């Protein structure tokens, strides 16, 4: 085996490479779809998507819009951390979307209804989402109900609970919740000067460094601590975990609690900036949770990788908004970004493919020598 090949066989290199290939494939597939809808604008639409805020010639304006992208990256990152944390323990927490909705509900109600300060709002969001996780965990451990099933059920439950609760604090003339800025300033996340960095973008808050810090923390817990060792052992082989005296049932519940808390905190990190208001008539859970799944896989299921994959996914989602709406219908931005995101989920498959090619290559050489 020569140097180049053994380099290609390194797991970290493979993950990175597969992620990049998936991104390229995703962009390409999106482009094909645009071509089919209307060939004339396809190239420029694609450029718009990739360019996102770079379209603005002035650095200052671009910086402000970059701020917007990262404001939405923070919750996405939290959702992908939530997914990957559970995934490492062998659980697929599809309930992340509902936990995110519940977190949003509690955070906003605490801010608008009870007029509480931001840290209490965030804490309540965390706790409520963690409780949802606990329900899934309990059902899994003691009633053998698959967490995917209970997660999907709870997604609907939490969406409508949130809609119902937040209707009490909505604006009288629209289906949206009141604007925190007008009602309760103390509930806004502190900017700690970051707004200045991004050309006075008031939405850039403590949430962003906090989310990055939490990624590192999640990595640390999973890789460096006794707790992480136990959780991963339970995920890989729960019979062996039981055999060596780990509490595999409570570990399952605890994992989903932590996973839920991460998603709930993500919701607080977004809605407590005042960037967006909750629409009390929405009939599906916010896509943030589901996009978190793609971000987790695109990031190679690594907490630090998730930082970059979340940023990328949010970047193209935002970029989609700039596609020429006179040529394409208004759903096009969502469609294209979902196609790209969808292909981003193929990282594991890509890795398999790379290895197969390497093996085939090896063999050819073996045959010649």
């Amino acid at each position, binding site marked *: 085996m020569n140097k180049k090949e053994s380099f290609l066989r390194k797991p970290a290199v493979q993950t990175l490479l597969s992620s990049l290939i998936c991104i390229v494939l995703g962009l390409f597939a999106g482009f094909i779809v645009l071509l089919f809808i209307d060939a004339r604008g396809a190239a420029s639409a694609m450029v718009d998507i990739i360019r996102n805020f770079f379209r603005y010639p002035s650095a200052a304006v671009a910086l402000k819009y970059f701020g917007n992208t990262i404001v939405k990256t923070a919750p996405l990152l939290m959702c992908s951390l939530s997914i990957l944390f559970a995934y490492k323990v062998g659980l697929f927490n599809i309930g992340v979307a509902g936990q995110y909705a519940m977190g949003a509900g509690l955070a906003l109600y605490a801010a608008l209804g009870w007029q509480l300060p931001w840290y209490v709002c965030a804490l309540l969001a965390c706790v409520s989402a963690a409780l949802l996780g606990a329900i899934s965990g309990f059902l899994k451990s003691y009633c053998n109900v698959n967490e995917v099933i209970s997660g999907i059920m709870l997604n609907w439950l939490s969406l409508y609970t949130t809609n119902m609760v937040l209707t009490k604090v909505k604006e009288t003339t629209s289906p949206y919740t009141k604007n925190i800025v007008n009602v309760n300033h103390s509930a806004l996340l502190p900017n700690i000067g970051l707004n200045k960095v991004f050309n006075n973008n008031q939405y850039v808050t403590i949430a962003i460094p906090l989310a990055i810090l939490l990624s590192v923390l999640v990595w640390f817990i999973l890789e460096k601590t006794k707790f992480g060792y136990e959780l991963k*052992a339970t995920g*890989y082989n729960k019979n062996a975990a039981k*055999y060596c*005296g780990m509490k595999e049932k409570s570990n399952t519940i605890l994992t989903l609690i932590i996973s839920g808390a991460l998603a709930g905190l993500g919701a607080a990190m977004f809605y407590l900036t005042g960037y967006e208001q909750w629409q009390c008539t929405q009939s599906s859970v916010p896509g943030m949770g589901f996009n978190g799944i793609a971000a987790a896989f695109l990031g190679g299921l690594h907490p630090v990788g998730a930082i970059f994959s979340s940023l990328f996914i949010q970047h193209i989602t935002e970029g989609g908004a700039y596609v020429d709406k006179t040529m394409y219908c208004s759903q096009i931005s969502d469609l294209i970004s979902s196609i790209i995101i969808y292909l981003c989920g193929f990282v594991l498959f890509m890795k398999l493919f790379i290895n197969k090619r390497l*093996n085939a290559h090896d063999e050819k050489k*073996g045959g010649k020598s």
Partner: protein
Amino acid sequence: MENQYAIEMLGITKIFPGIIANDDITLQLKKGEIHALLGENGAGKSTLMSVLFGLYQPEKGIIKKDGRQVKIQNPNDANDLGIGMVHQHFKLVECFSVLDNIILGVEPVKNGFLQKKEAKEKILALSEKYGLKVDPDALIEDITVGMQQRTEILKMLYRDNEILIFDEPTAVLTPQEIEELMQIMRNLSAEGKSILFISHKLNEIMAVADRCTVLRKGKYIGTVNVADTTMPELSRMMVGRDVEFAVKKEDRTPGDVILDVKGLTVASKLHKNNAVKDVSFNVRSGEIVCIAGIDGNGQTELVYGLTGLEPVKAGTVIMKGKDITHASIRERSVNGMSHIPEDRHKHGLVLDYSLEDNMILQRYFEPEFTSKAGTLKRANIRSYAEKLIDQYDVRSGQGAITKARSMSGGNQQKAIIARELDKAPDLLIAVQPTRGLDVGAIEYIHKQLVAQRDAGHAVLLVSLELEEVMTVPDRILVMYEGEIVGELDPKKTNAEELGLYMSGAKNDFRKEAAV
């Protein structure tokens, strides 16, 4: 002259990260012969067979079928060439019937509809012809390991395979089933099929094989005619030294009672009756007590009850004077119980963890490996694992960082044994500790069990192997249908008497008898 070889593997080399699993190996399989493949754990037997079956691509070497060079890229190619394999761990779909498993991938179809009736007739005919008793409609999860294996064999025959590979087929079978399997293999070879047979049990090889190829540490040692060789010679070829088959131990007077079991009853998962019925016995320090019996007579559930893997229904378990009937698994472990589990993949190992992480599975929480803040002390873990690897001769590609999944079956078992023995337990519960091990490793493990006893620890051994039952323990307890039916002294009993107890023909403790 017509070519006499069905398969020739010439100069095969297969390299894994850190290890040459097969180093220039040559294996020639004659038509219609039973050819045994012998070698220590990790010698590269499974790897060589996987190359033949198309699961791995060798770095070097060629394969010839009937004298013509062939390329085997994947198991489908192998199947097209008439090569079939029964793997060390079966590959059956649990929730499918025997019939569905056999036809999987080669389903007979007419106009897009499955023709199961035809398939069933063919299967029944095959099963009749070779004495492979199966119930085509039973689900895999409901049938015995023996019948699962017969299903695997039928799978090969259904595909009209001419070359049959058996990777350690006897490791999971009862003595009776082994006898049946040998007969089946003889029938198959009489039919003209060529068979490759991997086993660690020399007596099986002597009984059934025509020729035997020996590997050692990935290298080809030689091929011998079984009729011209002896068991000691085979083991010398395989290990590179003489192996002592007899277990040496001096008489000892046992000390205090370490484990005291009274009236233990454990429910069964398979049926409504109890799997363990009102069992009482004790194990003292400095003695090895063996639970003997045919597989499935409650031994597994008894061990689950003793180790806390399953709750007990009635009775008490006392260890070193303390009632541990309802203690947690962790409590039992830290109080001096070690457990070498029956199923190493299910309980014994986290296969996706590295070897070092598996080595600390029972002690990761101790201050030596975890700091007060809850972080793992990686340097200590590494040096501890390396110490055990060295001491117990656990072989693997990359040492402490090797993934447990990529290790050979026997070395996985050695890793578990190293971990459990190093705790210096007051009570060691060893369930089939030598399953799947080569003779050298078995000799070593038996020595270790005796050393535990001589150091004044109590050892409870559960074994299905008559050899082991007769030579290792100081006392034998025979289990039949969930009850202990006899206590025997290995020095005074013989295999025949043992067989009578194991089959339920003799019972010293039958309750009605006392009336």
